[in-house]
């Protein structure tokens, strides 16, 4: 047991979760109080002692699944034993209720035709029958995934194969149709929507069952350590902007909001709790009145650092669009911390998009407008930093003042156009600070058509911003 837990904790650490020694000890103690057969309690006991940040919970769950998935009685793997399958099938029939009166009984699940199976699945989904869904998930993985021991393919491949055969999209339509018939006639819009959400969540659950089943089989095949390694996913704050999948993007978006709240609170606090300034004579005399004219309580002036003015100039061409979007979202979410924010986007032409954000409560909508409406294409729609900067200087250069901080966002892949680095130099002479944020790993800089070095020499610093963690650190420094 101790060995198992030790391995588990090591894996958590390599997945990036900070687990301290005391937490490890706590976990050991905690599991002694929990009956080990109770899988859920066991999981929560480990979770409560080892994971202290909610965004790490998913990573924890994955590792847990891998390490302990084969150890619960109900999750025992079907080792090709027909007897077990039959048993399951019988169980299922009982669950299904004899009222169905199926004739095919006794044949075992394997003898089902695909159509029959789809019907079963549909019924299970309509009723939300958990046991049935689990059994069907097992069956469909067995049937469709075509898993071969020792084959070096990731779990996603098998998942894709299984899902392709099941056609769950079509299933949703069928389900909706069926429930419409059940009511007899049309559903009201509200009901329809609710039904749809209900089935959506059930189908989602079914997908998860399939995923878990595939994982279980893979673990049985390859062993927990190897599996954990392939399943290791970066934590949300470590996901790279440039390579995020759609799911990861969603997660990123979700973690962006709490992050901005935290950041804003922290910045406001920083501003308020600066060191004390010089003696405030007037205030001290005023307060001395309550002590009979004795200045017993000296008052000090608190420094009020000016809020910086911000100009964000972002490249929104394909590869770096996601990064620009996140930075704009972040900046506007905490715009209270700046006295003024102006934003510009470019590909090879440049356009000011400040107005899109004015008086809009919903930042993502504004971002959407930026992406669709801004006039950023000049010739061919390939990044041209040089031309964009030149136009920026001509049109808006006069607005840059000694309080302005200019942020340039992009990978500086200029498609071998002229760099016009003199613009950045001029900007720096007028502005308070000029920073460049680059979403590419540092090792890629200045390779190929990247000329971040040319621009970088004229800025106050070039920062690598590959993930949310780095972006957050930079913004905190900025305000």
């Amino acid at each position, binding site marked *: 047991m101790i060995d198992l837990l030790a391995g588990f904790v090591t894996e958590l650490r390599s997945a990036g979760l900070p687990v301290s020694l*005391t937490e490890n000890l706590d976990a050991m103690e905690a599991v002694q109080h929990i009956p080990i057969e109770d899988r859920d309690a066991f999981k929560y006991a480990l979770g409560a*002692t080892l994971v202290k940040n909610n965004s790490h*919970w998913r990573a924890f769950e994955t590792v847990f699944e891998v390490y302990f998935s084969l150890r619960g009685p109900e999750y025992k793997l079907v080792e090709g034993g027909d007897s077990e399958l039959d048993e399951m099938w019988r169980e299922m029939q009982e669950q299904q209720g004899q009222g169905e009166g199926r004739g095919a009984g006794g044949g075992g699940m394997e003898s089902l035709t695909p159509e029959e199976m789809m019907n079963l699945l549909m019924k299970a989904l309509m009723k939300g029958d958990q046991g049935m869904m689990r059994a069907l998930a097992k069956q469909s993985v067995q049937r469709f995934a075509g898993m071969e021991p020792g084959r070096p393919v990731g779990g996603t491949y098998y998942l894709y194969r299984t899902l392709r055969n099941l056609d769950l999209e079509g299933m949703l339509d069928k389900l909706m149709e069926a429930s419409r018939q059940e009511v007899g006639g049309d559903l009201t819009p509200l009901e329809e929507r609710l039904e749809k959400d209900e089935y959506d969540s059930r189908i989602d659950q079914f997908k998860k069952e399939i995923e878990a089943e595939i994982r279980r089989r893979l673990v049985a095949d390859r062993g927990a350590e190897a599996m954990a390694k392939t399943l290791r996913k970066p934590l949300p704050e470590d996901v790279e902007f440039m390579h995020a999948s759609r799911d990861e993007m969603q997660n990123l978006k979700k973690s962006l909001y709490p992050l901005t709240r935290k950041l804003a609170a922290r910045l406001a606090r920083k501003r308020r709790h600066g060191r004390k300034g010089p003696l405030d004579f007037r205030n001290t005399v005023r307060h001395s009145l309550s002590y009979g004219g004795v200045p017993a309580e000296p008052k000090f002036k608190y420094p009020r650092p000016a809020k910086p003015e911000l100009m964000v100039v972002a490249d929104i061409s394909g590869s770096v669009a996601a990064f620009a979007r996140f930075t704009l979202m972040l900046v506007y979410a905490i715009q209270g911390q700046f006295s003024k924010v102006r934003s510009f986007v470019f590909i090879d032409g440049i356009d000011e998009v400040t107005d899109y954000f004015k008086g809009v409560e919903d930042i993502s909508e504004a971002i959407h407008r930026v992406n669709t409406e801004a006039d950023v294409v000049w010739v061919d729609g390939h990044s041209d930093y040089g031309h964009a900067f030149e136009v920026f200087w001509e049109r808006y250069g006069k607005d840059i003042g000694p309080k302005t901080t200019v942020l340039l966002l992009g990978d500086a892949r200029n498609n071998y156009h002229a760099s016009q680095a003199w613009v950045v130099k001029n900007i720096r002479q007028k502005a308070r600070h000029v920073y460049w944020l680059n979403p590419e790993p540092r090792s890629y800089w200045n390779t190929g058509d990247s000329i971040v070095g040319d621009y970088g020499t004229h800025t106050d610093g070039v920062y690598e911003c590959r993930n949310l963690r780095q972006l957050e650190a930079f913004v905190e420094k900025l305000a």
Partner: protein
Amino acid sequence: MGNRFESVQSVREGLRAENYLADEGIAGVVFLADRLGKPVLVEGPAGTGKTQLAKSVAEMTGARLIRLQCYEGLDESKALYEWNYKKQLLRIQADKNSDSWSDVHDDIFSDEFLLTRPLLEAITSEDPVVLLIDEVDRVEVETEALLLEILSEYQVSIPELGTITAKQIPLVFLTSNNTRELSEALKRRCLYLHVDYPDLEREKLIVLTRVPGVTENLADQIARIVRSIRQLDLKKAPSVSETIDWARTLVLLGVSNIDAQQAKETLHVLLKYQTDIAKAAKELAVEAVK
């Protein structure tokens, strides 16, 4: 170390009797907190019953609830203890002549002149208590250090008196709305519990237990609509307490079957931003026109 609870199941049933519907995770962590003698750090979105959990546990165990509401600028004298200066002054003046200095000195720094504040009160109390440290993320990082001694050792050191150790180990709950990252030191000393929005079944049960006069059918509808709304991309998703408010509203209005129109008219109970309301109304009603 106290064994207040038999098993996870008994915690769950006990909470249930207090009209608090705990899921497996919540009950499990409360059970562990008792067995390990560790504080519980409860995090989660606003309005998911974090504070209520502490209250319910107190009621369930028949313990007194001592609450420390955190805010910016909270300090030792408000959280831990304070000397009663006025009384000390009076004591000194009362018998100026009789006592020698050392007598007075020892005397005025004794229990009698100590004003206990919530934290000290919780550990000196004879009867069982539940200590709730509410919204701990509101204090500054430096102030957090105040809590560390009491959370790990259940003791308070007062320079003039020595160390006061707890007579019995209280159940401690810390809640946080996650407006800032708590320090590692604090987190390490606690069990962590994240309370999220409940799933459909639990939300339905919560509505049924919390709202008198609601029918099963209505509760089901409410839970389902709320789930749909939570899936939208909103500024602030409806919390459990807002769901309950909404259910109450609908019961008061005598609604037994929600249709789109009624849902739309009462959405402002559930959502607090105009853009959110507009978005939800659009999603719920217009959707099916197509």
